[in-house]
């Protein structure tokens, strides 16, 4: 069983767009993914690299974890520019072989040592975006202990690799998602996946849809979110967090299950609902996850308060801070 990290919401943003980076801490995200890859024009790659070190503390001011998505083809230059204290994860796009992941691991290990970062701090996100990646899923996911979340197999790059128009439906991803999820579960990793709530509109800012998708994903056992537009952050946080009623219900299930162990029965039906050890395990999961979410929300709220206080002290708040 994986220990769950809380990555319900997060924004991927081009590190070269200053206003996105400066305001990121206000968005309520569990993580911010600073992009060096697809949202950064080729001629700005070197410039972008140079911005990461300073951007890391900026995007963490609201308690979010800082991730960076590097370029598949510039592993050395990118890693050298981004592995600094405060970075939690390197997202590596278009992963296709275990060898690539082992190389990342070796370089990160060296940089952690050189830069005084606790060994093993920086995770690797192996993004599977091609058919070749799907075909090597298990090898990739097991190539480094730094890979803690695994999944994907959808999206624009995958569509392009399959030669499929994006936003036509999601059947083309069924096999790849299945393979990746199986590999992740078999290795005890957190699964990055979602049930098929086909967003065939291509919209990245639909808050209602984001909420429904997050809720549906959570009910299927998935807990990882993320997006491109600030409008989806709050709905994802909400959708991935158990509601008060669900927490209440989970407590009720555990109470009934405890009573069972007193009577020695394996299961009982109450108003047509079966209470057994599977339901009890599910209820325990819900309570555990709800507690992790609450703790994460507390951390973020405290970070925001600290930041606001620090901003208030030396200078009067600028407009829009409150």
């Amino acid at each position: 069983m994986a220990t769950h990290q809380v990555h319900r919401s997060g924004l991927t943003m081009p590190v070269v767009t200053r206003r996105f980076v400066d305001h990121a801490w206000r968005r309520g995200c569990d993580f911010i993914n600073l992009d060096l890859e697809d949202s950064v024009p080729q001629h700005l790659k070197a410039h972008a690299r140079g911005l990461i070190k300073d951007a890391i503390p900026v995007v963490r001011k609201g308690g979010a974890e800082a991730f960076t998505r590097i370029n598949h083809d510039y592993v050395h230059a990118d890693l050298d520019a981004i592995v600094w204290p405060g970075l939690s994860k390197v997202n590596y796009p278009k992963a296709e072989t275990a060898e690539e992941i082992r190389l990342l691991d070796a370089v990160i290990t060296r940089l952690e040592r050189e830069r005084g970062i606790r060994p093993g701090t920086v995770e690797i996100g192996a993004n599977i975006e091609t058919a070749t990646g799907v075909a090597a899923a298990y090898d990739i996911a097991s190539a480094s202990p730094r890979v803690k979340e695994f999944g994907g197999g959808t999206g624009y790059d995958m569509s392009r690799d399959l030669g499929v128009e994006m936003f036509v439906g999601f059947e083309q991803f069924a096999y790849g998602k299945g393979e990746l999820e199986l590999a992740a579960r078999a290795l005890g990793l957190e699964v990055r996946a979602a049930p098929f709530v086909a967003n065939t509109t291509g919209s990245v800012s639909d808050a209602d849809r984001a909420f429904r998708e997050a809720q549906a994903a959570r009910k299927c056992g998935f807990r990882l979110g993320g997006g491109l537009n600030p409008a989806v952050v709050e709905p994802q946080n909400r959708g991935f967090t158990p509601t008060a009623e669900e927490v209440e219900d989970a407590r009720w299930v555990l109470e009934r299950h405890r009573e069972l162990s007193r009577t020695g029965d394996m299961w009982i039906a109450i108003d047509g609902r079966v209470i057994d050890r599977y339901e009890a395990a599910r209820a325990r999961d819900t309570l555990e996850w709800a507690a992790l979410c609450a703790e994460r929300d507390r951390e973020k709220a405290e970070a925001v308060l600290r930041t606001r206080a620090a901003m208030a002290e030396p200078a009067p708040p600028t407009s829009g801070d409150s």
Partner: protein
Amino acid sequence: MAILVRRSNLLAPITDTERVNQAWQSDADAITLDLEDGVVETRKAEARGLVKEAIALAGQGGAEVFVRVNAALLHADLDASVWPGICGIMLPRVASAAEVAEAVEQMTALERRRGLAAGALELIVLLESARGVWDIRSIVTASPRITQVGLDESDLACDLGITPLPEYDPHVYARGRLVIEATAAKVQPIGITYPLGVHPRRLSAAEIHRMSTGARNLGMKGVLCPDPRWVAPVNAAFTPTADLVAYNKRVREVFAGAVAAGTAAVPLDGRMIDVPVDEWAKVVLAMADACDARDAQKRAARAMPALAPLQGH
């Protein structure tokens, strides 16, 4: 790299003279002269004798010509099929890389003997068993001659012990595996949406178009057509529409503008345009050009004087 445009591949049983005579007028990208399931057991030897003459006839409309051989009669069938004018062999019931190697060995020898360029002949392989689907990776990488791979869905159902119901698709996993493994090996997956692969039947052109579009949306690159009436809707489904071409030209313009302004992520009609979207736009536009070129080639070939048809048997 040149894009292989083989949207429609029309099957013509070699013993069906009328079908063979008419196939070239169908606008199919490829025509496969069938020695296998389309020919009754008692006429296999006779069928072999018809191939050589049929090749030029089938190819006169600009279609690539293939011959589908019998796995059980591989040597005799290959010997009867490898002549100048064929593009390659369709190899059915493949369950192992060794079977591919066996066919390749004989094809190489025949190329030499019959004056074809070494390595010229392509292979389209069909998987028809659980074993074939499971071992697809070693099969599709067994020879660089393999350009396309498909499932024979009815034989696969038979191998799985399934009597397929039209409302429940038993091949979701097999088809998904086909698309992923073929794409990873740079081989084109081919096929059509369930249940047509299992129950080919006459349908309106609109239905064929819809089901071919479904197949394209799964990652398939073409369809084996049991009937010449499938060809036009299949070709249309695998050809980018004028609207799609116009939209993707716009994507490229908007993206180029964004890059010039210092960002590679820009909204267009509520969607986010970034590198992969622009890359995909290039693919669509290149595919449209390749389809246009292929269609022009076929038109030019059909404008030439026709060969005399084969006589009936």
